[in-house]
């Protein structure tokens, strides 16, 4: 029992890196994405028996195979980008808003209800203005509720926003049955199919409007975060609430204001989804993008410009894997598996950006790896 052993020096240990240059960090991330893509191809090959090169071709074909597919890819990308941008200011102040799903859904519900209730009774311009205002307000309110709880009583926002998602889903389910066409079908169907009342106007072609709005919001968030007083306050609160209090920032006010903005932009995404793209409302119209957006935003390190690339990557995988599953008669959830695998690699690679391993040399001295 009294035997003592000298602790053996471990084979390697982990040290924090000095700040990497942006170029080196990007190299590591790109390498992780490439390895992830290779693993995805291997999985696809095992399941379908297709050769890996063909797999990439199929992915590419699914996303950009025809002009129409390219436009849809861009459109999906811009919706995901808008939601990710909406969540970003909140994440930057360490407010884990995973309620994007509910906030978008409420925006969509507000837009759809304007279309249904006002359609053919008021001039189109009035309806559209009402839709814009109401969906922004609806999204903002859905973001505001957890923010008030957080600001007042420090209620855990991750779970509060999560619950708000399901309350929103059930509200949509309620109104779906209330307004279902025809009765008993359980869905609303295309709203105002003949009159097109409340359909957002087409700019150029029917895919362009969300793309333009996504570009505008990207620029806005970039400037908002980088060059305004609000943006500065957000990053101070995110770094340390105590510091923020010390220098006289009203933390509660910042939390509430930021979540209003976050919810409002989510509301815009809802408006586009229901008034501009689908012209209907269903409980699954957001399709989990509120959650995907969390990852998109985080992967981009909350930088709006990088977010364009990360949302493109996710949508590309999604559309591509969709094409693979139709080609080979597989289940469409295949896309989720591939996206998941890719995400694990990107999440894991952050470690190598922040830390490095230093190995033990046989004579006890360390070498840097």
């Amino acid at each position: 029992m009294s035997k003592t052993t000298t602790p053996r020096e471990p084979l390697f240990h982990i040290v924090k890196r000095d700040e990497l240059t942006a170029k080196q960090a990007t190299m590591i991330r790109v390498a992780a994405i490439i390895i992830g893509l290779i693993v995805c191809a291997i999985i696809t090959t095992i399941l379908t028996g297709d050769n890996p090169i063909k797999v990439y071709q199929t992915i590419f074909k699914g996303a950009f195979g025809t002009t129409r597919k390219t436009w849809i890819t861009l459109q999906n990308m811009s919706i995901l980008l808008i939601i990710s941008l909406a969540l970003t200011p909140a994440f930057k102040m360490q407010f884990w808003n995973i309620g994007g799903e509910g906030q978008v859904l409420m925006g969509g519900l507000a837009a759809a209800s304007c279309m249904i209730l006002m359609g053919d009774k008021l001039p189109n311009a009035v309806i559209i203005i009402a839709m814009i205002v109401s969906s922004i307000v609806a999204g903002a309110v859905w973001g505001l509720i957890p923010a008030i709880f957080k600001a007042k009583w420090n209620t855990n926002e991750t779970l509060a926003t999560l619950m708000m998602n399901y309350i929103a889903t059930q509200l949509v389910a309620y109104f779906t049955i209330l307004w279902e066409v025809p009765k008993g079908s359980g869905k609303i169907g295309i709203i105002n199919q003949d009159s097109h009342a409340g359909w957002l106007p087409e700019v150029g072609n029917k895919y362009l409007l969300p793309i333009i709005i996504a570009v505008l919001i990207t620029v806005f968030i970039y400037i908002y975060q980088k060059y305004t007083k609000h943006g500065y306050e957000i990053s101070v609160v995110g770094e340390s609430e105590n510091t923020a209090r010390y220098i006289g920032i009203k933390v509660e006010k910042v939390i509430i204001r930021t979540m209003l903005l976050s919810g409002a932009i989510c509301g815009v995404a809802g408006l586009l989804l229901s008034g501009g793209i689908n012209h209907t409302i269903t409980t699954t119209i957001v399709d989990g993008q509120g959650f995907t957006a969390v990852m998109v935003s985080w992967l981009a390190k909350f930088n709006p410009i990088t977010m364009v690339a990360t949302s493109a990557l996710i949508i590309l995988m999604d559309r591509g894997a969709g094409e693979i599953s139709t080609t080979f008669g597989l289940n469409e959830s295949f896309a989720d598996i591939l996206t998941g695998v890719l995400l694990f690699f990107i999440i894991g690679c952050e470690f190598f950006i922040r830390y490095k391993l230093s190995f033990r040399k046989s004579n006890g001295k360390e070498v840097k790896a």
Partner: protein
Amino acid sequence: MIDLVAFIPRAVQQGVPLLFGSTGETITEKSGNLNLGIPGVMYVGAISGVIGSFFYEQACTGSEMNGFLAITIPLLCSLIGSLLMGLLYCFLTVTLRANQNVTGLAMTTFGVGFGNFFGGSLIRISGADVPSIALSRTSGYFSKALPFASSLGGFGKIFLSYGFLAYVSIIIALYTSYLFKHTRVGLHLRSVGESPATADAAGVNVILYKYLATCIGCMVAGLGGLYYVMDYACGVWSNDAFGDRGWLAIALVIFTIWKPDIGILSSILFGGLYILYLYLPTGMDHMEYKELYKMLPYIVTMIVLVITSMRNKRENQPPASLGTNYFREER
């Protein structure tokens, strides 16, 4: 009024997956890991069990199934499946120190996709000659009630009519609760969750505890998925049928203020709320009210969440280091 003898067993059946999930998540959270991947883990636990028993049933088409194997094979497959998910989460968050929220959400995306993919494509991939995944024979073993349940009337129906996994879930919850409060392991685990640096200084192996707690937590949660598909759903896999129960299990952890023994009754309560809409009178022309009733579990959770944070009692708080990763050299 509601027929309680019919209602309670259904509430319990709804509650058991939630109990497994929330006990698993509580064990995980006690070590300071907030695993938002639990919904995915439960899907993986369910589908792994389904894959195991699917092949076993295929292997004994026409011949008698061995009861012991019929239970052990899906059980082991399910445990291994969720263990692998747990290891993945730990490797990313504990070893590679990745953000826990993002890792968890990615695991949910992956896990739900994994479940639905194999649920939808298993038959095609394995080339089996069956129309759908209906493991009624395996399910028969899982949902076998105690033999004297039916002879005891209402009492038997409320307390004894469940498959063995339901009782397992209660035993696990009670044991976990004992473990937290009365054993050295529990004390160490709680200290890791409250202040990993202090635990480390006291000689507790923080990394090991985080790994063990998260992996065991995932395995327990995975059993919830297995119970759902084998017992509640009678062995029939349908995509997305498990729904948002995983998230509800995470909410339940807060509802029970990190105490698995409270979880037993709360999960049954949640199970009841989950299906209450089937029992409340709505009339034929107001079907839409059912959708509002379905909101109840979430609204109740929200209220509890706000109230616990308002009262701010020290013993009702989450583990202090929840959601943050530990690195010894980072002080």
